[in-house]
């Protein structure tokens, strides 16, 4: 008999579901698809996949779908889905978990620009212990340029990006909101040890 419902098979679902539940600390089994999260998601109309859909994919064991959808990357971490969920599921924690799983599996992120932004932020912070905006943005633009040139939007995307940032930088300079000093902390070795612990397998 034909059916539109996707079959749930415990043996297919369990490995992915268990991993996401353990790492994110969220009980995905509690989701009863009320879609309050979807109603409140500010990026849902752009991503297509809303928090309830992402949860369902994971519950059904659809690893490919769960790791390769726009919500995982374009989630703005506003935490609206979680605070409105009647079952206390914070889907933003799930998108955070899946991003890390994608990285560990050495898969290409769906939106390299967003991935580069956050990884550059953390790399920059590991250099001095504090985030220095110029160094962070420099690092991000280098990584972004590389990705745009290799399989991204090409030279035009690079030029558009750099023009936009240069315009912002010029205004920031005029308003004295650009900061040139590099702040470095004395306890940098401590921070570096934390980074080491956070990145070792």
């Amino acid at each position, binding site marked *: 008999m034909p059916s539109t419902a996707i079959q749930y098979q415990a043996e297919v679902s369990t490995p992915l579901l268990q991993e996401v539940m353990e790492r994110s600390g969220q009980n995905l089994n509690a989701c009863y698809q009320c879609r309050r999260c979807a109603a409140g998601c500010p990026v849902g109309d752009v991503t297509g996949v809303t928090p309830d859909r992402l949860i369902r994919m994971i519950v059904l064991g659809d690893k490919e779908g769960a790791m390769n959808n726009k919500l995982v990357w374009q989630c703005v971490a*506003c935490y609206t889905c979680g*605070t409105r969920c009647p079952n206390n599921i914070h889907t933003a924690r799930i998108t955070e978990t899946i991003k890390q799983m994608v990285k560990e599996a050495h898969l290409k992120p769906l939106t390299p620009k967003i991935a580069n932004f*956050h*990884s550059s932020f*953390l790399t920059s912070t590991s250099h001095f212990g504090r985030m220095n905006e110029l160094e962070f943005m420099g690092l991000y633009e280098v990584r972004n340029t590389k990705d745009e040139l290799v399989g991204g939007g090409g030279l035009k995307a690079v030029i558009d990006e750099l023009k936009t940032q240069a315009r912002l930088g010029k205004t920031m300079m005029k308003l004295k909101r650009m900061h040139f000093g590099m702040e470095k902390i004395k306890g940098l070795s401590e921070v570096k040890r*934390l980074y080491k612990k956070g990145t070792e397998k």
Partner: protein
Amino acid sequence: MEMAYYPGCSLHASSALYDIQCREVLSRLGVDLREITDWNCCGATSAAKTNDFLSIALPARNLGIADASGYAEMVIPCASCYSRTLLAQKTLENDKNLREKINVELSDKVQGKIRLLSILDLLVEKAKSGDIGSKASRKLEGLKPACYYGCLQTRYPMDMQLPDDIENPQGMESVCEALGAKAIDWGYKTDCCGASASVNDSDVALKLMSNIMKDAVGRGANCLVTTCPMCQMNMDAYQNAGGEKYGVNERLPVYFITELIGVSMGISSVELQLERHFIEATALLRGLKLL
């Protein structure tokens, strides 16, 4: 009284004006901010999105330093730093293994003693006690602020005891009232402005911001007021781009709450550094004879 203070990276760089204002305004309210020594970046949204361990361990180091400072309370003006630091404190309270794993690397161990305050917590207290009202000699009549909370002032990715309503907070409104300004009622006060996406996903960020602008303008606000430097920077620096792309003609100055309090206390616009806004921020105040 003296209180520990964590400014965070943004208040040492692009939002240095907020750091200056916080120190000045709070000092006039009887609170001397003591910046904790050798603090590090809290990791912000980027650590949360990319590394679970660091998202707790980075703010944990600051918590250890704050615990060792001897102060009972620490105020954190940046909504993002506040949120990440509070989350780390709560997480480590419940997770002894993780606390041990982090503490072994720290010279100042996390003890979980220090009470964390957002700038709004502190200002609401000062509004309730009457301190703000009595220092606010110039009543901000004619100012119609849309109090903008954004995400991180009220929403956390774990259960949290909150001093205000999640969906319709009133803390900033109560501070505005103490200054003699009647805040408008509106529907986008806790919607996301897309600050973390402004550089890397600008279409999304500009759209989110213009939704907020449309409601604020439509309800008759003549300015926005916020406590979060990420929101301030985003709504200020990208307002022209968002307005052009999504058809919002009006421009609203985006004030830090400390600017409104400062103006009301009679602090000069130069001292408050009001000229460092992207959207001109002094004309409205001059027109209302508040500067």
